[in-house]
C-alpha cells in the first residue's frame, strides 16, 4: 500500500464538519425568532480553525502528492461551490439577514472548501509523489510526471 505518513486530516475534517452542522442546527431550531448566535459563532470559529490547520499541515507535509490533490480538489471545489451557492440563494431569498446570514454564509464557505479538501486528500494520500493520473475525469490513462 503506497500510503505516506500524513497528518490526521480526515479525522479532523469529520470534527470540523460536525461542528458546522451543529451550529446550523442550533440556528435552524430557533427560527424565525431571535437567534442566539453565541454558540453557532463559537462552533463556526472552531470549525474554521480546524480547516486552516488541515490546510497548513497538508501544505507542510513531506511526500504528499500535491499535483494530484489539486487536480481532484479543484473539480470537487467547483461542484461544492454550486451546491453551496444554491443553499445560500435559498437563505437570502427567504429573507435571512444580519448576523444569521453571516454565520450561515461562512459555514457554507467552510463546507465548500473542506469537503473538496477531504476528497483530494483521500485520493492523493494513497498515490506516491510523481504519479499523476492525467484527466481522470475524461478517462485518460495514467501518467508519470
Amino acid at each position, binding site marked *: 500500500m*503506497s500510503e505516506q505518513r500524513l497528518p490526521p486530516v480526515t479525522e479532523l475534517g469529520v470534527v470540523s464538519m460536525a461542528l458546522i452542522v451543529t451550529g446550523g*442546527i442550533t440556528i*435552524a431550531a430557533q427560527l424565525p425568532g431571535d437567534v442566539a448566535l453565541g454558540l453557532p459563532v463559537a462552533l463556526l470559529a472552531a470549525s474554521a480553525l480546524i480547516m486552516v490547520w488541515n490546510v497548513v499541515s497538508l501544505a507542510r507535509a513531506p511526500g504528499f502528492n500535491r499535483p494530484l490533490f489539486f487536480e481532484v480538489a479543484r*473539480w*470537487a471545489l467547483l461542484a461544492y461551490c454550486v*451546491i453551496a451557492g*444554491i443553499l445560500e440563494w435559498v437563505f437570502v*431569498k427567504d429573507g435571512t439577514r444580519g448576523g444569521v446570514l453571516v454565520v450561515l454564509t461562512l459555514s457554507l464557505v467552510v463546507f465548500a472548501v473542506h469537503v473538496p479538501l477531504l476528497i483530494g486528500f483521500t485520493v492523493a494520500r494513497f498515490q506516491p509523489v510523481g504519479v499523476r493520473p492525467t484527466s481522470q475525469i475524461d478517462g485518460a490513462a495514467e501518467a508519470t510526471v
Partner: protein
Amino acid sequence: MTDVALPAPAVAPDAPARADFQIVPLRGLPVVGAVLVALVVAIASNRLWPLEFFHVAAGGLWTSFDLFLGFVLGPIIGRMAVPARIDLTTKLMPKLLLIMPTIVTCTLASGWQLGRLLGTIDSGYANHSWIVASYIVVGVMAVIALAVLEPANVAVLFELKKPRPDPAVIGRLMKRFIYTAGITGAMQVATLVIMTKVATG
C-alpha cells in the same frame, strides 16, 4: 448520504485488463444541470406542488438508494466473483457520484423552502421537536457522507482506474462503507419515521 455500502472489489496484481471508465460520467452533467435549474425554478416559484414534488421525490429516492444499495445490493455484490464485482463497481459508483449529491441537494433545498411555506420549520410549530430531530438525522448523515464516504468513493475509483490497483488500498477505503452502513441505515429509517409523523400532524 451520498454514498452506499458496497463491498471491496479486491484486485489481484495480475488481474486481466479492464474496460476504461470515467470517474465522473460527463454525459450525465447536463442532466444534473437541468435538474438543478428545475430545482431553482421550483424554489423561486414558492408554490406547494413543485416544492412538494422535489422534496418527496428526491427524498424518497435518497432513502431508497441508501437502504437498497447498502442492505440489498451490497451483500449481493460481496458474494459475486471478483471480476464481476469490479465491473459492477466501476459502472455503478461513477453514476452515484452524480446522482446522490443531486438528489440530496434537491431534497434539502426544496425541503427548507417547503418548511418556510408551510410554517413547519418555525419554532412555534406543534411538532417542532420532530423537525429538530430531522435536522440532527440529516446532520449525522451529512457528516458521514461528505467527510468519510464520498472521499473514499472517489479514491476507490482512482485506484481502480490504475493498471494495477492495490487491493490493500481498496480494502482499507471500503472498510469505511462497512463501518458506517449501520449508522446510515438507522438514520434513514429514522427519517421515514419522522417525515411520516410530520406529514400526518
